[in-house]
């Protein structure tokens, strides 16, 4: 039962990263790939109908995490207090950038909102990568299961690490590059003309970096958290995960070169999913490792909600998920195809 909920939460977070990831990535290339007013308008139109819906996945995944593993939620959210608050502010700034940008018709102000939107998107992508890095590396949990992490200490992963050390910074860069490629492919898929070409070029140019970073982050992870390999030694079948990472990364490049953006974008989704699932699989059954004493680590067993509650949750969760996936498929079908500025005057 705990394992099942671990999987559900991991999948929901993965879906969030894939969905909000492309609009964060689109934001990250926004200043560089879109040169004219019209092109910037097109990027905003491409993510306009979906970005706040994508953010709803963060709420839903957060809610499900809270429901299934309350002590984990309590401990990690209070421990990561400062970076989480900054994530919230960045999410708000980003919303301000998008909303004001479309409503104020003045080049000076639009320049400001462009920078806010792009800057917040880049920082968020880095934060998400660094957050994952923190969870993999471990945090200084006390015996009571709480901790408070400073933003930085000595930039080394040790028993008393900060939010930022060389490992989590690396993870942050991996996050940024991955989501930038992801977003570029989405923009290429949804637009035409020079913008499409520039987005394609961005993805192709960043790809070698992404490949190198993938290998580097793998080596670093094994160095920082040697336990990560144990689960992989346990089941031979789990070697599928790194294979998917490699295959999707290679195919992403292949399809992007042939301008088959849909397939390339889907490969990027598969790559992100495999990386996240790989990390989750390496951690299992631990959900928050302690850098202080392995016995203090939070696992799915010592941080799950009561059995009855989890059983009940399974019923409504399945129902809710079927409904939600239904809406999303319906909405994406309604808004499929390339963005054209002439039609659809929304709010």
């Amino acid at each position, binding site marked *: 039962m705990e394992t099942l909920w671990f999987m559900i939460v991991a999948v929901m977070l993965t879906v969030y990263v894939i969905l909000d990831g492309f609009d964060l990535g689109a934001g990250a290339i926004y200043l560089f790939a879109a040169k004219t007013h*019209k092109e910037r*308008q097109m990027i905003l139109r491409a993510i306009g*109908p979906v970005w706040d*819906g994508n*953010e*709803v996945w963060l*709420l*839903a*995944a*957060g*809610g*499900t995490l*809270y*429901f*299934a593993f*309350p002590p984990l*939620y*309590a*401990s*990690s*959210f*209070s*421990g*990561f*207090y400062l970076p*989480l*608050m900054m994530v919230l*502010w960045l*999410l*708000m700034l980003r919303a*301000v950038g998008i909303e004001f940008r*479309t*409503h104020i*018709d003045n080049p000076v102000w639009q320049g400001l909102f462009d920078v806010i939107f792009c800057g917040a998107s880049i920082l968020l992508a880095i934060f998400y990568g660094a957050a994952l890095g923190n969870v993999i590396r471990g945090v200084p949990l006390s015996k009571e299961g*709480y*901790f*408070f992490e400073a933003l930085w200490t000595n930039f080394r992963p040790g028993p008393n690490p900060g939010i930022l050390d060389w490992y989590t910074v690396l993870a942050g860069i991996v996050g940024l590059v991955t989501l930038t490629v992801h977003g570029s492919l989405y923009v290429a898929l949804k637009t035409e003309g020079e913008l499409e070409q520039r987005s394609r070029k961005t993805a192709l140019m960043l790809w070698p970096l992404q490949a190198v970073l993938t290998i580097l982050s793998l080596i670093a992870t094994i160095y920082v958290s040697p336990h990560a390999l144990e689960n992989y030694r346990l089941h031979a079948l789990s070697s599928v995960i790194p294979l998917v990472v490699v295959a999707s990364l290679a195919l992403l490049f292949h399809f992007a070169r042939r301008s088959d953006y849909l397939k390339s974008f889907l490969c990027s989704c598969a790559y992100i999913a495999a990386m996240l699932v790989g990390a989750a699989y390496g951690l299992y059954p631990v959900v928050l490792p302690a850098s202080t004493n392995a016995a203090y680590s939070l696992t799915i067993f010592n941080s799950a*909600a*009561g059995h*009855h*509650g989890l059983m*009940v*949750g399974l019923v*409504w*969760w399945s129902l*809710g*998920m079927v*409904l*939600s996936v239904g*809406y*999303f498929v319906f*909405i994406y079908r309604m*808004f499929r195809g390339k963005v054209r*500025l*002439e*039609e*659809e*005057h*929304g*709010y």
Partner: protein
Amino acid sequence: MRWSPHNAGLRIHTMDNALLVHRLHFAFTITFHYLFPQLTMGLAPLIVALKTLGLRTGNRAYHDSARFWGRIFGISFVLGVVTGIPMEFQFGTNWSHFSRFAGGVIGQTLAMEGLFAFFLESAFLGLFLYGEKRLTARAHWWSAVAVFLGSWLSGFFIIATDAWMQHPVGFERAPDGSAQLSSFWELVLNPWAWWQYAHNMSGAGITGAFVMASVGAFYLLWGRNAEHGRVFLKTGVIAACLFSIFQLFPSGDGQGRMIARYQPVTLAAMEALFEGGPGAPLVLIGQPNIEEKKIDNPIQIPGALAFLTYRRWGGAVTGLDSFPRDKWPQNIALLYYSYHIMVGLGTIFIATAVIALFLLWRGKLFSARWMLWILLLSLPFPYIANTAGWMTAELGRQPWLVYNLMLTADGYSKTVSAGNGMFTLLGFLGMYTVLGIMFLFLVWREIEHGPLGQPLAGHAVAH
């Protein structure tokens, strides 16, 4: 400040200031957040009504009005989402001990909100706003209904969460002391939740209705968009009348009886009834004097509180004197004022709406400038009343975080220092100022452009 017998009172504030900062942090962010959902939840049924009238009569003005209010809804929804994410986060960041204790129960309702309400609302809002040309009229109507359902479901799950904190049911204590769900149906059928839900939703309805009527009055006074202004006024005034009467009876009455039954000390503090006994009076105006345990400058109706509570003029209402001092809500003055402001404004809403409806019926509303001015200026007051109502609920529950189970002083994040809490509180104050300005700016642009104005996102096409 060093401790001495003379500053013992101060000591409480200085030593516990982490608690105070975390309380202010949540209070400020939730108060600001709820400015937006109350408008979306209030407008949602009105938009459905406008779409329905449009379908029935074929009158374009109704469709234009629905589209206009859909855009206002959309702006408010975005603000609701971006200020709502911090609310969910704060359960973990600022109230981690509470979350560890209660997550096994209220995690249910909070997660269900995400799954059932947010997805529905956000998915179909996109369709409603961007899809009118792609959908048939009937399908567009359905998308409005889905948005309505989503926003009202969302309200229910949050109310069910708060109701569990007010009146915990359907749980058992695990060996580690935490509360865990024992009965799902007891949790969602909590009688407190249903009364509170009815009361809260019609409160949101009042906000939506008065905002709509206010914008309508503005158009008529301005002399522009008069046709739509009349539609807004008619819809808004009728809805305001229905919601504000429902707010008093049965929902307010039912909510009050819940408090009398399960939190008698809260009722006594709301009324600042320092001495209980038969035939308790209802204080209309007066300042509670906590030190001397009396009301200064009282204007009161003898026996009325007893009647409202027990339907008998001589009924014995329990006063604060029946409870030990440490069980009293700590901030009786603020609780008393919140409650009285809410009730006072609620009464004024009924009067305003009934008079406006009478004028509408006599066909005089659209030319009665004095009434249009009153309606125009009524706009901020439903927000104040809703905020005061929530302050009554939350201050009234003190000193408990979960009634009779967990003290507020035990629930906050002990690892997050007062300094860090203050830092982020200041950050939110600044950020929300910007968001507030943005909201007013965007809504004003919509109102100025009017229901027939070129939709704002479209203007960029000309470049």
